[in-house]
């Protein structure tokens, strides 16, 4: 039997959802127009006033917002509430120079937690469950989001954070974790580790909520089999709130977007034209209930499809497919957002040339990042230990920038494949989409 955290919302009629969206959109537009000079200027440039945005039908009139806009606005440029009303920030994983910082009032945290609670209940969570959260805690939204959701449900929450697999498994066995929340690659790794130790009979897991990176149906089947659980996908982004923007139900055929909080559009990434439901394009979100950091028409760069066919779970909110790719060059490696430009910046800063190649692969369901760099006279030495020392410094600088380990391989000059004179920067062999 399907369970809901907020059945009156999750099963609301389409008319009701539309009415909420119209009202909340108009209110949010008025709010940001009055309180955020950035939005006011951008709307004035288009000759718009808040009165022009009365309903979802008017949404297309508003300009788009991009990650670059958010970086430009760092840190307070898009803040729509006084700082004294804010209680939390979260931030995206490393970016060159400026990060994206999102602000939350207590109201914003509450609605984010509710979104995550919907996901946990959809995965079968109740107050009798033990929710084992091994997403990272800190600036990354994964840990705090599921942690808050689990509190709302009333489950016993294990704030494990990431890493220390030994301890993860011990707590899982000793405290009887029933719902696992982490990246799918870490879930697969945990499953392997549990099998290696022969502990599969000692764990009580029944479900997993896995997100923050792309994963295939094969990987889902593998995790479900190895752990004897049902694996649910979850989607979100810091800019919009965090995990729980959308989540999977028992049907496992896409993720329901919490439409009472977020309006989704699909656009043609080249032209910006809004595409009808069912067409593949870039996902754009407008948050309509947030106070501190509401974003209008934020381009996620994720390519996917919306599906409004009635769902067997009884939820009426639109479903989005798993992201099928990106409309920019961002890579998601071990759940962390990585831009090739960040790697390039570190190489140049460390004295290496911009002749590099990024190899991303998946071995035993775990992402692996390798950066190949061409040797140059300035970085060469007759002493192997000196080269190795510089290599180590590069690895540390990459780790500091990206937040994840990258293997560095030094290669001979002019050995990195070039197409039309330009090096092929990224080779991703994971076949995620």
């Amino acid at each position, binding site marked *: 039997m399907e369970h809901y955290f907020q059945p009156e919302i999750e099963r609301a009629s389409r008319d009701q959802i539309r009415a909420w969206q119209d009202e909340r959109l108009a209110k949010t537009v008025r709010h940001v127009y009055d309180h955020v000079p950035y939005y006011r200027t951008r709307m004035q440039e288009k000759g718009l006033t808040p009165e022009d945005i009365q309903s979802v039908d008017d949404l297309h009139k508003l300009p788009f917002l991009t990650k670059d806009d958010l970086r430009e606005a760092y840190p307070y440029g898009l803040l729509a509430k006084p700082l004294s009303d804010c209680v939390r920030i979260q931030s995206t994983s490393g970016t060159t120079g400026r990060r994206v910082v999102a602000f939350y009032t207590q109201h914003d945290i509450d609605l984010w937690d509710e979104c995550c609670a919907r996901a946990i209940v959809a995965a079968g969570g109740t107050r009798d469950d033990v929710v084992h959260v091994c997403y990272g805690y800190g600036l990354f939204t994964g840990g705090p989001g599921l942690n808050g959701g689990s509190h709302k449900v009333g489950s016993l929450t294990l704030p494990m954070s990431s890493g220390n697999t030994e301890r993860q498994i011990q707590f899982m066995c000793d405290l009887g974790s029933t719902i696992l929340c982490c990246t799918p690659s870490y879930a697969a790794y945990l499953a392997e580790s549990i099998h290696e130790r022969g502990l599969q009979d000692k764990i009580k897991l029944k479900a997993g909520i896995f997100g923050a990176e792309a994963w295939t149906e094969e990987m889902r089947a593998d995790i479900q089999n190895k752990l004897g659980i049902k694996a649910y996908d979850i989607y979100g982004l810091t800019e919009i709130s965090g995990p729980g923007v959308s989540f999977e139900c028992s049907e496992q055929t896409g993720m329901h977007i919490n439409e009472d909080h977020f309006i989704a559009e699909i656009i043609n990434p080249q032209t910006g034209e809004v595409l009808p439901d069912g067409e593949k394009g870039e996902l754009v979100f407008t948050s309509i209930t947030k106070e501190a950091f509401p974003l209008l028409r934020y381009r996620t760069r994720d390519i996917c499809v919306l599906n409004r066919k009635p769902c067997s779970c009884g939820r009426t909110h639109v479903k989005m497919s798993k992201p099928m790719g990106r409309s920019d060059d961002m890579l998601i490696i071990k759940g962390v957002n990585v831009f090739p430009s960040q790697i390039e910046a570190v190489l140049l800063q460390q004295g290496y040339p911009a002749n590099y190649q990024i190899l991303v692969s998946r071995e035993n369901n775990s992402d692996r990042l390798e950066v190949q760099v061409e*040797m140059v*006279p300035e970085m*060469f030495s*007759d002493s*192997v230990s000196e*080269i*190795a020392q510089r290599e180590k410094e590069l690895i540390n600088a990459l780790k500091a920038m990206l937040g994840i380990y990258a293997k560095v391989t*030094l290669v*001979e000059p002019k050995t990195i494949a070039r197409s039309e004179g330009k090096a092929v920067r990224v080779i991703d062999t994971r076949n995620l989409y």
Partner: protein
Amino acid sequence: MTINQLSVFVENKIGSLVDVTKTLYENEIDMRTLSVAETPDFGVLRAIVNDPEKTARLLTDAGYVCKLTPVLAVAIDDRPGGMYRVLQTLEQHSINLEYTYAFVTRTTDTAYMVLRVADNEKAIQVLQEQNIRLVSAQEVFKL
């Protein structure tokens, strides 16, 4: 009294050294000795060649990263203890030895050591005090 040693960056993969040595052969470069230091991913080929500047130019043109480093070459008796005397002298004067390799020739009872140390001048001084004979590039190639 130093000798210019040629170092070349090579990837640790099949054929890397073949390509370098082919370039040397095609340009009739005479090599007296060499050593290769390696890591799992890459290696550094170090060689004493008859015309290091020309060789470095040739290899750079062929797409390699090269470097010339002044190193010391000393003549030692080709019998037990010969090497020990040299290393002991350096150690007693706290001269850090980065690496060393040795070679012998067909015609004499003398062996030769190439020394890469932190301080060439000081090393020359202390080695000469111990009557350890340093050899020049010309001498190495007359052997």
